[in-house]
C-alpha cells in the first residue's frame, strides 16, 4: 500500500508540471494584458508600460516561467498581480471554502443519490422507480445556476429562512456555516444526485440478478440482509468510482455556484484571475486544483481495496 502511494505520488509530479506548463502557455496565447486591466481602457501607452514594468511583465515569458518554477521549488507560488497578496495566501483563503462546499454537496449526493438509486432498483418498474427516474432526470437537466437563483429567491427572499448568499467560516459560527452551505450545496449537488441515482439503480439491478443474490433470497434471508450484506458491497466499486468523479466535477463546477452565491472559493478566484489575466494566480490555482484531483484519484483507488479485498494494487487481482 505504501509503495503504491509513493509510486502514484511520484508519477503525479510530471503530470502536474505539464499542467502548469500548458496552462501558462495557453494564457500567453490568449489576448489580453493585465497591465491594461489595471491601468484602464483609456490609459496611455506610457501608463500601460509603467504598469507592465511594475508587474514585471516587460520580461519575456520564458524568464517569468523559469522564475515561477524556481519559486515553486521553494514553495512560493508567486505574487498576485491584482490581489495585493501572495498566490499561496489567496489559495489558502479559498481552497477550504471550495472544499467545504464540494464536500457538503458530496455528502448530499451520496446521502440522497445512493439510497434512492437502491430503492428504485428494489422497486423496479413501479411508481416509485418512475418517480426516482423523474427526479434524476430533473437533476441532470436543470441548469444549476438557474436552480441556484430560484433557491435564493424562494428560501432567501420570500421565506427568508436561509441566507441569500455569502459564506460564514466554520470558526465564526458552525451553525451559520452550515446554513450558508445549504442552498449552494443543493444547487451544486442536484446534477450529481441525478447521475449517482441512475448509476446506482443500474448497478444494483445487475447485482440483484446475480446467482448469489438469488441463492441468498432462496435461503430465506431477509431482503434487508441480502441488500445490505451481499448486494450493496458489490454495487459500491463502480459507485465509488462515480463518487470520485463526482467530487472532481463538484470541485471544478463550483465556479458558477460560487458566483451566484458570492462564495469566495477557488472557482471564483480562478474565473476572476482568467478574466483579468492574473497569470500567477491562474498557474498556482490550476496546479493546486490538479493536485487535489490527483490525490482524489489515489484515495478512490485505495478505497477499492477496502471495499473489495480481491482487488490488490500490486498487479495481482
Amino acid at each position, binding site marked *: 500500500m505504501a509503495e503504491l502511494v509513493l509510486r502514484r505520488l511520484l508519477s503525479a509530479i510530471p503530470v502536474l508540471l505539464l499542467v502548469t506548463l500548458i496552462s501558462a502557455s495557453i494564457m500567453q496565447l*490568449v*489576448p*489580453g*494584458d*493585465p497591465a*491594461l*486591466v*489595471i*491601468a*484602464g*481602457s*483609456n*490609459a*496611455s*501607452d*506610457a*501608463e500601460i508600460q*509603467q*504598469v507592465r514594468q*511594475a508587474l514585471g511583465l516587460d520580461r519575456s515569458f520564458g524568464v517569468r516561467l523559469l522564475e515561477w518554477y524556481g519559486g515553486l521549488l521553494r514553495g512560493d507560488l508567486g505574487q498576485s498581480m*491584482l*490581489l*495585493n*497578496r501572495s498566490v499561496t495566501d*489567496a489559495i489558502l*483563503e*479559498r481552497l477550504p471554502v471550495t472544499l467545504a462546499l464540494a464536500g457538503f454537496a458530496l455528502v448530499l449526493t451520496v446521502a440522497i443519490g445512493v439510497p434512492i438509486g437502491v430503492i428504485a432498483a428494489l422497486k423496479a418498474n413501479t411508481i416509485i422507480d418512475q418517480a426516482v427516474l423523474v427526479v434524476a432526470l430533473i437533476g441532470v437537466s436543470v441548469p444549476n445556476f438557474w436552480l441556484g*437563483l430560484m433557491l*435564493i*429567491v424562494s428560501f*432567501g*427572499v420570500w421565506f*427568508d429562512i436561509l*441566507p*441569500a*448568499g*455569502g*459564506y460564514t467560516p466554520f470558526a465564526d459560527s458552525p451553525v451559520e456555516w452550515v446554513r450558508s452551505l445549504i442552498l449552494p450545496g443543493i444547487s451544486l449537488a442536484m446534477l450529481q444526485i441525478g447521475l449517482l441515482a441512475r448509476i446506482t439503480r443500474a448497478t444494483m439491478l445487475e447485482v440483484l440478478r446475480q446467482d448469489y443474490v438469488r441463492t441468498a433470497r432462496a435461503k430465506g434471508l431477509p431482503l434487508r440482509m441480502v441488500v445490505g450484506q451481499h448486494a450493496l458491497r458489490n454495487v459500491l466499486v463502480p459507485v465509488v468510482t462515480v463518487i470520485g468523479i463526482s467530487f472532481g466535477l463538484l470541485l471544478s463546477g463550483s465556479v458558477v455556484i460560487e*458566483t*451566484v*452565491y*458570492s462564495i*469566495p*472559493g477557488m472557482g*471564483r*478566484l480562478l474565473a*476572476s484571475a482568467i*478574466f*483579468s*489575466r492574473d497569470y500567477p494566480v491562474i498557474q498556482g490555482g490550476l496546479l493546486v486544483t490538479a493536485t487535489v484531483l490527483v490525490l482524489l484519484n489515489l484515495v478512490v483507488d485505495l478505497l477499492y481495496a477496502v471495499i473489495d479485498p480481491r482487488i490488490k494494487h500490486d498487479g495481482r487481482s
Partner: protein
Amino acid sequence: MTTAPNRDDSRHFPRVRQWALACAICLCAVATATDALAQQRAPMLVFAQEAPPPTLDPYFSTSVSTRNVAMHIFETLVTRDENNAIVPNLADKITEAPDGLSYTFTLRRGIKFHNGQEMTSADVKASYERYLRVALQKVILAPVSAIETPDAYTVVLRLSRKVPVFLDEMSSFVTPLAILPASQRDREGGKIDMIGTGPLQFVEWQADSHIRLKRFADYVPDARYKGTDGFAGHKEIFFNQVDFKLVKDPGARVAGLEAGQFHIIEDLPIESAKRLAGNKALTLYDLKNWWLHGAWVNHSKPPTNDIRIRRAIQIALDMEEIMEIATDGAYVLQPGLQYPGNPYYVTTGAQYYNKKDPAGARKLLAEAGYKGEEIVIITNSSYQTMYKAAQVVAEQLKGAGFKVRVDVFDWATAMARRKDGNAWNLWFTGQGTGPSVGPFAAMKDVVSPQKNQITADPVIDALYAELISGTTVEARKATFAKFQERVYDQVLFLKFGDLTRKQASRANVKGFVPYRIPRMWNVRIED
C-alpha cells in the same frame, strides 16, 4: 476673648459630599451620553458592489471599484463638490501666484492619519513625490518643478510653466492625489499601507468576499461644510464598521438587498428596478449621467478611414432606439460631451447627432464608392449595455447598406484588441469618469499621443492645447465648443446617449445620495 471660628468638620464634609455627588453625576452623564452616542451608531453598514478592485492604491488604478473604497480611506488637498466645482478638502486655503507659476496650500491643522500621526507638509511633499514616480496620471504633476515646505502646514508647488487648469487637474478624481504618510514615499505602485486621513480606516480585504473598513475615531469633520458635498463635505460616520461586499452577480445583489443582507447596492439591473418599483421596503435611486455611451471610430482602417463612410455611419444611427434597447429606458439623449448643468456644457455638433437618416447614409456610401467592405465592430460580454448597443448598431448599419461583423470578447481581450488598429472600425465603450471630471478629461483620448481613433488629428491636438491653456472659464468654454464640433465633424467618437445608473437601498437607510462613488458618510439606518 473672641476666637476665630474654627472650620467645623461636620459642616465641611457635607460640602465635600456635595462636590463628590456633583462629580459623580457629571461622570454618569458623560458616560450615558457617550453610551447613547455609541448606541446611535449602528454596528455595521453593508454595501454590495459589483466588481472587485484591482488595488486600493489610489495612485495605481483608474477603476471605479478602487475609488468606491479608497475615497473613504484617503483624502486630497483639493477636490470637487456636488456641482463639480473645485473646493478645498485637506487644504485650508489655496493661493495662486499672480503669474500662475506657483500655488500655496495652507493645510488644515489637527488632521490625523489612521496611525495617529498628524498630517504635515512633509507628508504632502512625500505623497506628491510618490505620485510623480508611480501614479498612472503622474502627468498631472509634470509641470511641478519644485515642492517646498516652508513650515509644517504650508506647501508651495512651483511650476515650470503656467497651467491655467492646474487646480482642475489636481482635483481630478480619476487617479486622486491622495495624501499618504511620508513613510509611503518609496513604496511601489499597489504596495502601500492603507493609511489615510479619511473618515473610515482599513481593517481587512478578503478578495472575492469583502473589504472591511471601520470608523476612524479621530476623524474631524470639515466644519466649513454643512453636509454631504461631492468628495468634500462634512463627513460623519454613523456606523462602527462598513463592509464593501464583492457581489458580481446582479441577481445575487438584488436578492441580498431584498433579504436585508445588504443595506445599499451598486448597479441595480433595470429589469429588477421595474419589479422593485412598488416595494416599500426599498428605495430606488437614479444616478444620472453615469457615462457617455458610444463607440470610438478608427480613422486608419478602411473603410472608416474615409470621412464619407464615417459620416454615413454617424447619420444612419437612431440613438433613441440604441439607448432604449441598450439601457432598458435608463438614458437621456443629448449631444454634449459634458452634461447639462456643467459650466462647460455646449451643444455644438448637434446637427450630426441622432439624424436617423439611413437614406442619406446610402447616398453617402454611393458617393464614396462603397463596395461592401466589412465594418468590424468590437464589443464585449462584460458590460451588457455595450453588448446590446453593438447589436442594435449592427442591425441599423446593415439596414443602411453596410456590411457588418460584430466581434464579442471579454473585457480584457476587447481592450487588448483596441490597441490593434487593424482589428476594428468601431469599438464600443462607456466614457464615465472623464466627462464627469470635466472637459479636459472628457475626450482627452482623441488627443495625441493617446488618439483612440488611431490616426492623429492635428486640429484636435491644437484645440486641446488651446483648451488647457485658456485663462478664463469663458475662453475655455469657447474652445471646448470648437473641440466638440471637431469631434462630431470628423466623427472621432460616436455618442449614443447618457446612461443613467440605478442604485437601491433598504428604505430605512437615510442620507444616501448617489454620486460617482457610493458615499457612506452621513448615512444612517432608522428603525
